């Protein structure tokens, strides 16, 4: 493993020297800019409201009434409780609620909407990295070095995940800048309130956004691994890209169609959205975070094992 760093350098070179990688980054930047423009043009100018404290007090009163009327509905009660607590915290700490789009709300929105794009890009990158060497025949010169195939495959996998990290950092910086330019850099210092079991505290937006990224990347991670498996097993990049992106797109429909069955909880895509546990409404009541993590680990091990077996055992006939 001494020259594993060299292998990573090689794979990185092969990812970023391709035109496709540059195009992907440009598309990502273009999408962020376009999203910023559209939101900017469609959102009204925020009016300067000096009476915001009184309005929050009024809001809380209204909500307490509503809460009394929906007694027994735990979900609604929780929501009202949370909002009331947050409002009280704002009044106590003199934190004016943001109005309209702000730098951070834009960063957050860009994250939840564009990670699917990064998923598609990473699926393309991993499939190309693994399968294209069979198409072009370069695999024959790659595998006749004193390096085990396992190390080659691992370097391809890790360099792909590094590509995701590069995309996420690009997304974060670009959406922060675009958000700042369109909605004011003044919003950079905005407080991020977190409600946790009845108490409210302030946290960093950066942390919150990266936590979002991470949660959204669970399905990315699984689908990229799946694409790697298909690419390694069938040595066909087009098939790996097509199948993985199709599965990724169809997953939410399939899960909602199957939601009535008990066994849906064993379907991969019923478990990739971990935000279902942070928002408090899992797909099925008997599902827990631990259960989902266990399902994810089992799928992951199967994907990696099958892909690895095919990649390392099959003859190279390309």
């Amino acid at each position, binding site marked *: 493993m001494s020259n594993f760093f060299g292998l990573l*350098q090689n794979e990185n070179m092969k990812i970023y020297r391709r035109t496709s990688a540059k195009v992907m980054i440009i598309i990502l930047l273009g999408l962020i800019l376009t999203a910023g423009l559209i939101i900017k043009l469609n959102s009204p100018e925020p009016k300067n409201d000096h009476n915001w404290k009184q309005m929050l007090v009024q809001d809380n009163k209204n909500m307490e009434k509503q809460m009394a009327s929906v007694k027994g509905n735990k979900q609604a009660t929780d929501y009202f409780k949370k909002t009331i607590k947050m409002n009280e915290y704002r009044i106590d700490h003199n934190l004016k609620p943001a109005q309209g789009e702000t730098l951070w709300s834009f960063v957050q929105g860009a994250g939840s909407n564009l990670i699917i794009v990064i998923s598609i890009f990473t699926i393309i990158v991993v499939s190309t990295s693994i399968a294209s060497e069979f198409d072009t025949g370069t695999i*024959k*010169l790659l595998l006749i070095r*004193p390096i085990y195939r396992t190390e080659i495959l691992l370097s391809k996998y890790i360099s792909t995940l590094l590509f995701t990290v590069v995309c996420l950092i690009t997304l974060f910086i670009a959406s922060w800048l675009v958000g700042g330019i369109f909605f004011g850099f003044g919003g950079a210092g905005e407080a991020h309130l977190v409600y946790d079991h009845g108490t409210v505290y302030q946290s960093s937006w950066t942390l919150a956004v990266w936590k979002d990224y991470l949660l959204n990347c669970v399905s990315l991670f699984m689908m990229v691994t799946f694409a790697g498996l298909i690419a390694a097993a069938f040595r066909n990049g087009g098939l790996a890209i097509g199948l993985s992106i199709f599965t990724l797109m169809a997953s939410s429909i399939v899960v909602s169609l199957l939601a009535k069955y008990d066994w849906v909880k064993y379907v991969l895509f019923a478990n990739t959205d971990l935000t279902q546990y942070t928002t408090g409404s899992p797909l099925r009541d008997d599902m827990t975070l631990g259960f989902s993590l266990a399902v994810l680990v089992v799928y992951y091990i199967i994907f990696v094992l099958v892909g690895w077996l095919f990649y390392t055992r099959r003859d190279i006939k390309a």
Partner: protein
Amino acid sequence: MANNAAEKKPAVRLEHVSKRIGGKTIIDDLSFEIYSGEVFGFLGPNGAGKTTTIRMIVGLMRMSQGNIYIQGHSINGEFKKAIRQVGAIVENPEMYKFLTGYQNLIHYARMIPGISKDRIMEVVKLVELQDRIHEKVKRYSLGMRQRLGVAQALLHHPSVLILDEPTNGLDPQGIHDLRNYLHELSRKENVAVIVSSHLLSEMQLMCDRIGILQKGKLVGVEKVNEFIEKGAAKVRIQVDDGRLAAQAIKEKLAIETERIDETTIELPVEHEKIPVVVDTLVLSKIRIYGVAAVAKSLEDRFLEVTGGKSVE
């Protein structure tokens, strides 16, 4: 040769190697040895299993049976140690087209410890690509790609060099240079060179020994010179009546004449028996205008050994 071989340790040794794919035997019990300091040619018609054998030697394909040793290391059991000794081009030298020639070489250099930038430039100069090395490979001609392929195979000073169809795409000057270079590598640096080629005349000039593969079996491993000389030599005789002459030889000596036309016959006959043939013709009152031994080319011999199957 036999004595010589026994003294030397083989650089590559195949022991009862077989390869079966889906119940079909592609390679059948192949055993032979290749020594340091020799150029070994691999010959065989299309589908004979040359490429499969080369792929098994470099570990791209697993053998169903047997073992292959490179400098004493099993390609199965000690893959890294064995493959470290090997530089190879398998079929076409397919490089990364979106990278420059230099980036391609850097890529392979990173996979083996101890290859300096100086060594890379040394190899680049050797294959005379220094003017174009920083251009993308997609702009290279076939000959330049072939030379880049040779460069990547030589980067790490391999003691076994395997080149599949190395003269493909090279111009006559390039072929000449490559031939000289391969000879130099084998003589001076004691490298074992394995080449496969469909250009038999090229093999004749390039190789010390050749192994002929047919239908997955080794038909013979011989020194190039012995290979050509072996078997009955041919003699061409100019006579006044070809048909009569052939008839006389068939009746008296029971030798089948291979080619007959009006005034010339050609027949296989050992060197020392040529006077007997001449005597027979004279006794049969046939006039002889000329007798010439016909040197057989590698191609003739090859067709003879493989039963007249055409090559690639």
